[in-house]
């Protein structure tokens, strides 16, 4: 494998992993009964 594809695969994998983790955390917070808006669900996004 060329370094080119390794770099790209790593970047895409990290990005997809980050988005997946974000979605999972939001879902977990909703399950716990967080109403949102207080910031606890979104340390990653800053929203």
């Amino acid at each position, binding site marked *: 494998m*060329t370094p080119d594809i390794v770099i790209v695969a790593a970047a*895409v994998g990290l990005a997809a992993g*980050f*988005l997946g983790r974000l979605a999972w955390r939001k879902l977990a917070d909703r399950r716990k009964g967080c109403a*949102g808006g207080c910031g606890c669900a979104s340390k990653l996004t800053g929203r």
Partner: protein
Amino acid sequence: MSAAPLPRIAVVGNPNTGKSTLFNALTGLRQRVGNYPGVTVARKSGTCDLGGGRLVELIDLPGLYSLAAVSPDERVVIDVLLGRIPGEAPPDLVLVVCDATNLLRNCFLAAQIAELGLPAVLAVNQADVARERGIEIDIPLLADRLGTAVALVSAWKGEGIADVRRTLLRGLDQRPVLRRSEWPEAIAAALAEVAAAARDATGRDIPPALAQRFLFDSAPTLAESAGWAAPAREPALRAARDRVRRAGLNPPAAEPLIHYARLRRDLEGVVRGTGRESRSAAVDRILLHRVLGPVCFAVFMLGLFWSVFALAKGPMEWILAGVDGLKALAAPSLEGMPMAQSLVTDGILGGVGAFLVFLPQIAFLFLLVGLLEDSGYMARAAFIMDRLFGWCGLNGKSFVPLLSGFACAIPGILSTRTIEDPKARLATAFAVPFMSCSARFPVYALMCAAFIGPQHGALWESVAMVGMHLVGLLFAVPIAFILTRVVLRVRPAPFVLELPRYQLPKVKDVLWRVWQSVWEFIQKAGTIIFALTIVVWALSYFPRDEALAERARAVAVAKGADSAAADAAAAAAQVENSWMGRMGKSIQPVFDPAGFDWKLTVGVLASFPAREVIVSTLGITYALGEETGADSESLYAAMREARWTEGPRAGTAIFTLPTVLALMVFFALCSQCGSTIVTLARETGGWKWAGISFATMTTLAWLAAVAVYQVGTALMS
């Protein structure tokens, strides 16, 4: 060993008395913000040094006019004061903040707090405004009449803060209780009856203040939380209220009648000078005028957006130049690795750069809105809009959530909790996502920067911006009308809106809020947008088909294209063949009647989780497909030069004025925010209304976009 807990002082007062300003002045930056358990009412507390190292904890409670707790905010206040919050004892002292220009009405809350039997002191705030209006207050006499320590303060100007500290110290040392009103015999007997019945039903003694709430409030929500359920309490409450009626008093009116009668006597000689008409009132005669008011509002909004464009132009060019510089720096260092080079320049820098370029506009928008808000004008804007909301059957309290919706729908939907009527609450929550939130701003800004500005000038850019902010409102009004009047049949409710006086904005506070919004925007660009651009880039880059690209290049060369044009044709063929391209092309027929090509369709689809993603998506698809060079201006140029390649419109421009307006209208109306849908589902207790909202908004967006494109195209042909 843990330190002994600090004495706790609860700060209460009517809304707009400057309570939070005083709280900030007393605590400085030593504040903690959280939520009360089970509700989304913010709990703000901070440490205050009363002098000589004597520290206390101040708790800033939500503003309220009376202890007749109806909304969750108001219930929290009484729960805190009665020590009914789990893990929290009642406060050691209550600081009642009153407005010096309206002392009588503010003292009503103080009279109710006296009934709680808690030690309390008074801070009479806005002394400067009272002075300006010729109102004099005899503080020692007031202290004597109310039976407690009183401080005169102007928290906004920072005058008298030391006096408040001294008053708090005296309050903690002497624990004075405010003088109570005397209840007529019939009411005293009825209160005793209620207290006895509640004790029998719950097995616990209830404080006299709660018995008053049960007797006087027509919907005693506090009884529920005290464990005295509705059917069981009704006979006892009916009997007690009948006793009050037999004495010639109306139970809900008795409390204000008795308190106000006593307070008028107490304030006799305390307040001198009736107050001249303030400058604010004179200005309001124009700004709140039935006809001139809305005209001024429209002019202010046009001026606001025009200023945003004018002020942001320079900084936006600097960011564009910065992104181009980074691209020029990155491209040669990744020579020999075409994939990684494309990921960095077309994907990350193209996508994130296209998004970040709107940072100055966001900053100036928040700066100008912040200045208007701090000056007191936004409350007038709300008053003007309230007439419209009232007409379409929305609850008077709906205007705060709807106004919040212009920043972000989520806090807007959450703030519908202050509306007591569940049907009115639902109708408001349904209308909030129609308000043009700040995430739509970059989408409008992109279309304005690429098309409307260069072709029609800054004035039309501002008109388009104001228009797009009104589009949502234009649809929300009839929808709310149908929902409130036909579907849900909401009863109209009274609503109190207090207009703060006009004042010079506090630049430091406004700049702090601007920084918060700018930082949020940067964080979003660095996290979600960054990650999404990589994913969108990958979907638009793979799979690669070199043979297909070569064929496209050969066809272009055969048609007489130069080498740059042939490269562009090859790149376009690769993007069309990518996963994103295939998806866009298969769904494009749905959006064809609105004039969207497959790239716009891809942008629209990628934007369903969060609408601002379209900006970075277009940045990537155009950067990958055009090979027009490394500068960011090329996104706008590429969009302007984009042509239909097939069908009856082949060879004509994709981005005509009708397409641009159709796209903006689509984004103004479409339900493209995952967080909003989830919040709506949570707040309405199920997915039904969230689903209806998503379907309604998306269908309306499509229909409106198609109508704009078709009518616009017919008119222009």
